[in-house]
């Protein structure tokens, strides 16, 4: 039944009769969408209702009431104040911060190492290129869990005990219980050094901007690097000495069973950071290599023709273009690294999964709630990382003129 049928026969044009409400596409679309939403909501409600009903009938505790209850267990490393009188909620945060710490350290080290290896693989030096190639092929082809076990059980566990510790320079100590480094203790007047340091950084940025403008205007170059280094290091250094070195050090000392004082770095944390960053670096290296190789050869030749040195060609021409290829897959690697950090549980590092999805789940017995929160946490971490990397990608994207 279409409108054309109304035009049959002689006579004045009759406006097409309005189709009934049921046959109007907008109405139907709206109905379907509403039905879909209602269906989805009802579906989720049914699942949630079913779960809570089943839990109640099996007499399994449910709800988030455990959040404020005393946890009663200890965590070996915590960035926030936590002890066995704290609540399960605080245990959640302690675990979460431990995971974020590993992820942040891992991302930094993996990126640095990955870029070095990736560029190294393109080196014209046969030995360097092959060594980097061997690194990539070995590390990315071995299971990560195996590598973590290697670092933890095979390397770190073979260090000597506390009483036979390896003494490192500058008062640091290494043994099977971890790495202990001296902790700085600021004394009176140390704030002045910090202020000088901050001023040095601000001044460096000023110098950099001025030098850039001058170069654009006159073509003359200014030794920015050396000036910056002098401002950032020498200025606070001079203040430090002038004030009579107002910084003490607390050295780790063997007392009883363990070293006390200083900053202890757990072997679990070291193994996890080393394992995660060396593993992820092998993937990043390949991404970097692909990114650089993806820059057309003509770009280099053009840069050479302009008389740029090979270092400058890399820094000013190749890397900025390569970054556009590198960033999106790099994001995936960062996300992988954050998620892989949950393997920590195998080597005793108190990460989020170990503390919350392990101990808390077990002591409360509330699997549904704990797993839900865990998924929510990893989703949030991943989405935030993605959002940042997308912003960064947009920032460095090719601006067409």
């Amino acid at each position, binding site marked *: 039944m279409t409108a054309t049928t109304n035009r049959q026969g002689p006579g004045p044009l009759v406006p097409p009769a309005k189709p009934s409400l049921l046959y109007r596409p907008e109405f139907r679309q709206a109905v379907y969408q509403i039905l879909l939403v209602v269906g989805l909501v009802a579906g989720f409600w049914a699942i949630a209702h079913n779960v809570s009903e089943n839990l109640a009938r099996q007499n399994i505790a449910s709800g988030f009431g455990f959040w404020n209850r005393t946890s009663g267990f*200890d965590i070996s490393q915590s960035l926030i104040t936590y002890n066995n009188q704290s609540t399960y909620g605080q245990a959640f945060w302690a675990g979460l911060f431990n995971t974020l710490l590993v992820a942040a350290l891992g991302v930094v080290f993996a990126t640095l190492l990955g870029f070095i290896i990736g560029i190294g693989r393109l080196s014209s030096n046969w030995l360097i290129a092959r060594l980097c190639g061997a690194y990539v092929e070995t590390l990315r082809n071995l299971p990560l869990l195996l590598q973590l076990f290697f670092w933890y059980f095979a390397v770190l566990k073979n260090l000597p005990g506390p009483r036979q510790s390896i003494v490192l320079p500058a008062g640091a100590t290494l043994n099977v219980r971890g790495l202990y480094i001296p902790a700085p203790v600021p004394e009176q007047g140390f704030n002045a050094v910090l202020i000088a340091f901050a001023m040095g950084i601000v001044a460096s940025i000023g110098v950099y901007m001025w030098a850039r403008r001058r170069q654009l205007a006159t073509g003359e170059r200014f030794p920015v690097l050396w000036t910056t280094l002098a401002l950032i290091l020498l200025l606070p250094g001079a203040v430090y000495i002038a004030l009579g070195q107002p910084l003490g050090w607390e050295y780790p000392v063997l007392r*009883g069973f363990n070293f006390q004082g200083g900053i202890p770095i757990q072997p679990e944390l070291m193994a996890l950071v080393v394992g995660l960053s060396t593993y992820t670096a092998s993937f990043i290296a390949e991404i970097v290599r692909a990114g650089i190789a993806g820059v057309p050869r003509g770009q280099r030749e053009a840069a050479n023709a302009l008389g740029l040195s090979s270092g400058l060609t890399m820094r000013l021409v190749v890397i900025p273009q390569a970054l556009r290829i590198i960033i999106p897959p790099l994001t995936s690697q960062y996300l992988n690294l954050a998620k892989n950090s949950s393997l920590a549980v195998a080597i005793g590092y108190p990460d989020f999964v170990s503390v919350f999805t392990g101990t808390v789940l077990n002591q409360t017995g509330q699997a549904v709630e704990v797993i839900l929160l865990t998924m929510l946490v990893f989703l949030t971490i991943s989405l935030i990382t993605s959002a940042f990397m997308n912003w960064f990608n947009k920032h460095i994207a090719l601006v067409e003129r």
Partner: protein
Amino acid sequence: MEKGNFMKRATKLFATAAAVALGTAGMASAQTLDKVKKQGTLSCGVNVGLAGFSAPDDKGNWTGLDVDYCRAIAAAVLGDATKVRFVPTTAKERFTALQSGEIDVLNRNTTWTLGRDSSLGLSFVGTNYYDGQGLMVKKSLGVKSATELGGATVCVQTGTTTELNLADYFRLNKLEYKPVVFEKADEILQAYQAGRCDVYTTDASGLYAQRLQMQQPDEHIVLPEIISKEPLGPSVRQGDSQWFTIVRWVHFALLNAEEAGITKANVDQMTNSTNPDIRRILGKEGEFGKGIGLSADWAYQAIKQVGNYGEIFEKNVGSGSRINIARGQNSLWTKGGLQYAPPIR
């Protein structure tokens, strides 16, 4: 026309989906006994590996005290001690495995506490091993008592009562310590031997069993302090009182058998005994098997195929094993221990 059809189909589909989602609500309380009989096997949750309680031997057969309890239940229910499907579980997985119905009974050196009895939807049926938490250290440390452990690093397993007792003990005694938490017992063993921790803590029976796995067992001592009560026993899902009664009375039957002197070897002669206690245990008098939904010879089968409590104990953790733990608290009440079973009558 077509759209109308689609609508109908969609409605139907949704209705079915909702029915499935809601319908499962009625399923979980199905009778465990019927399920076990229908399947012909008992799914039994055991430890992934703890010598004496449940560990595969060099031929791959499961052995241990908890394992024998699984076999005894299978013998009583199905008449065949070999009809067991062993499901190895870690401390972390065990309760979920029972709650979800993956296993019918959990026999995994699990401590009976009020918290677990009340909020995990499971019920402990009894205590098949009275244990307590101990602390093990290297002899070379020269430590003689737990009170000297201030500042020590302690290796412990996640998701256990051990983890909580440890925190309580050190707090009450105003001692500092650093926990290192692992998921599996063999990871702890490795870390402890490498010197990552000064102390390894778990149930005393576990410490003795684990010490045997070490390179130099003689260089480690278990400190005299027992810092907690750890009654270990089987547990079942709540809401199935028939199954609860069966598992509980299999345990009691094994104890009563020992008390009455019925052993694996003499059980056939004992069926001719005139002692009414023995006749009732072995199903010659009374209708106790029928009362709990089993055959009359349920206890006979368990004793014949697995042995009484004392035999199970000595074979797996006692004098017949390498662990060689004294009966102690686990002796029958008649011999000064805590093992006591209500009478079968």
